[in-house]
């Protein structure tokens, strides 16, 4: 039996390559289906891996608190905000917090200038504690200090990408850059972190929180994020509940009303990401199964044509002693090889496509195709080959030798 399979595979390959272009067109349905699923999987898996990396870098005991405006309120023009007062309340009334830091993102576009060189970057106002919360460490100079905040010093810690974009010297410490019309002295250069989650972690400028507030002017609009780290001996869930209670009372949220803020743990974020990826995968699975079905019908169609074309050959083989299963296997294997080839081309194409997309979106993590996806894609293509090859193969195997030989 094994022997027959080898022979059948050999002749299946021969006849597939004898009609190279036709075979290619036939497998196109499978190629496209598999390629699209692999492309999306490679992107989502790459994304998932880097999200996971980032969250594990954050540590499982760090919380992000941000304002949350329900859609209804948004439509009425209301916007919830977190303010430094909220931070102060948490600091004062919640136990088990190892460090807490505000984050204030620049609202307007943030241009930085050094000499004649300008660039855009992510500018954040934060404090000393962010070093630990965000796992940012300096390679040269120092991080932001509490005194920087207290005196609203115009100092900045920059990422390596910013240094390169501005043509700053290898050691940029004590150089001055212009930021929103003010001059900032660089006090530290961060260690490179690389790209994570579609966002270059080295393209960043950190300034003292209070300085950021003052240069942003309109303080009523201030909406900060709060990052905090739960101390190692405290329970994360308990801290979350406490923060929630404190914020509800200080912000005057009555019972039965929804929170106008959200507290996210890395696990929650990861679960959300997984959820989205899972949904994309299911929708995609539906599209792909339709595409594979169409591909399979294409293969069945061409196999039926092929059986008719080769009726005489089948007659010859039967005349010299081929049994039913010899002919059946020959055509079945041809169908399976055809769809497997389609599957393989699809995997390669999909991975190529995913990599291309990932490479062209700045900061997007590299595409990654897990082995299970490859196996699943090939397994499905093989299954489609069997499913849609069995009918033509059976038709070939059941031909009467004399009729087949007489066929013109």
């Amino acid at each position, binding site marked *: 039996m094994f022997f027959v399979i080898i022979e059948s595979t050999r002749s299946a390959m*021969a006849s597939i390559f004898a009609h190279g272009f036709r075979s290619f067109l036939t497998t196109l349905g499978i190629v496209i289906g598999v390629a699209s699923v692999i492309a999306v999987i490679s992107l989502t898996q790459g994304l998932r891996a880097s999200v996971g990396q980032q969250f594990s870098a954050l540590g499982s005991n760090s919380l992000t608190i941000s304002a949350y405006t329900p859609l209804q309120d948004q439509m009425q023009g209301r916007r919830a905000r977190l303010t430094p007062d909220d931070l102060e309340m948490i600091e004062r009334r919640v136990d088990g917090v190892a460090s807490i830091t505000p984050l204030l993102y620049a609202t307007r576009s943030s241009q930085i200038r050094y000499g004649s060189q300008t660039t855009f970057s992510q500018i954040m106002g934060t404090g000393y504690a962010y070093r630990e919360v965000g796992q940012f460490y300096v390679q040269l100079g120092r991080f932001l200090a509490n005194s920087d905040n207290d005196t609203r010093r115009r100092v900045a810690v920059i990422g390596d990408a910013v240094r390169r974009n501005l043509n700053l010297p290898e050691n940029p410490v004590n150089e001055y850059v212009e930021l929103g019309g003010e001059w900032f002295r660089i006090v530290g250069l961060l260690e490179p972190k690389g790209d994570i989650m579609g966002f270059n972690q080295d393209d960043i400028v950190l300034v003292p929180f209070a300085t950021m507030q003052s240069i942003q002017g309109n303080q009523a609009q201030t909406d900060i994020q709060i990052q905090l780290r739960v101390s190692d001996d405290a329970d994360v869930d308990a801290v979350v509940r406490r923060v929630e209670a404190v914020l509800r009372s200080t912000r005057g949220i009555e019972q039965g009303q929804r929170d106008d803020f959200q507290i996210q743990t890395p696990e929650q974020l990861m679960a959300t990401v997984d959820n989205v990826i899972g949904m994309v995968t299911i929708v995609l699975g539906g599209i792909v199964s339709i595409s594979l079905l169409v591909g399979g019908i294409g293969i069945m169609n061409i196999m039926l044509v092929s059986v008719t074309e080769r009726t005489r050959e089948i*007659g010859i083989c039967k005349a010299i*002693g081929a049994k039913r299963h010899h002919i059946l296997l020959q055509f079945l294997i041809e169908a399976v090889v055809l769809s497997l080839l389609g599957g393989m081309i699809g995997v390669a194409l999909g991975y190529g496509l995913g990599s291309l997309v990932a490479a062209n979106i700045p900061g997007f993590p590299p595409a990654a195709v897990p082995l299970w996806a490859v196996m699943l894609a090939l397994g499905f293509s093989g299954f489609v080959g069997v499913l849609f090859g069995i009918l033509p193969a059976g038709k070939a195997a059941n031909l009467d030798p004399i009729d087949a*030989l007489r066929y013109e």
Partner: protein
Amino acid sequence: MSLIELQDITKFYEMGEQTVRALDGISIRIEKNDYVAFIGSSGSGKSTMLNILGCLDRPTSGRYHLNEQNVENLTPNELAAIRNQEIGFIFQSFNLLPRATALHNVMQPLIYRNVRWGKRKAMAMEALRRVNLADRVHHLPNQLSGGQRQRVAIARALVTNPSILLADEPTGNLDSRTTAEIMQLFDELHREGHTLILVTHEDEIARHCKRIVEMKDGRVHRDINTVTADAQVSN
């Protein structure tokens, strides 16, 4: 018992209202190492006869014993095994696999009896050498002349060492010189002990054979032993 025994074989085709009696009661014995030519006008039933002898086709009625085995009630797969082991078929139109080289064409029947690659190749080379085609083994059929193609087909028939070689107008598509070559090959195979049954409408070819069976309207009209010049005329 003879190598082949036919008893009252008929083959009818229903064509609408009308029944075509392609074979209309044939009883004949063929011995080992016989060299038989079936002759007769077109439509007299020669090909139908040969196809039944070669287990490609089944008779409408009658008995067929091949090598003391009753072929009547065999399944399609059992018939395939008989075609593979007992019969070497040679066709007027060669019937080679177009995408396979001469060597692979000759190796093909051995696949169906599970001969290993190396052995298969050696056997096929031997058969091709026998028909003087050792220098053309890697040619495709369309790279060979008609006579060479027919020799590949003969090698394919020989490679399984069958009990009988059946040839339906084997020289019908060949010119007179290649016809002579092929007939010389058949004569040699006969001398080596093979049993040959040919269908032809050329007297020139029939004259090579030991025995000439003339068919007429699906019946045996004359059965002539050319060695003893002994003719049995039916009807």
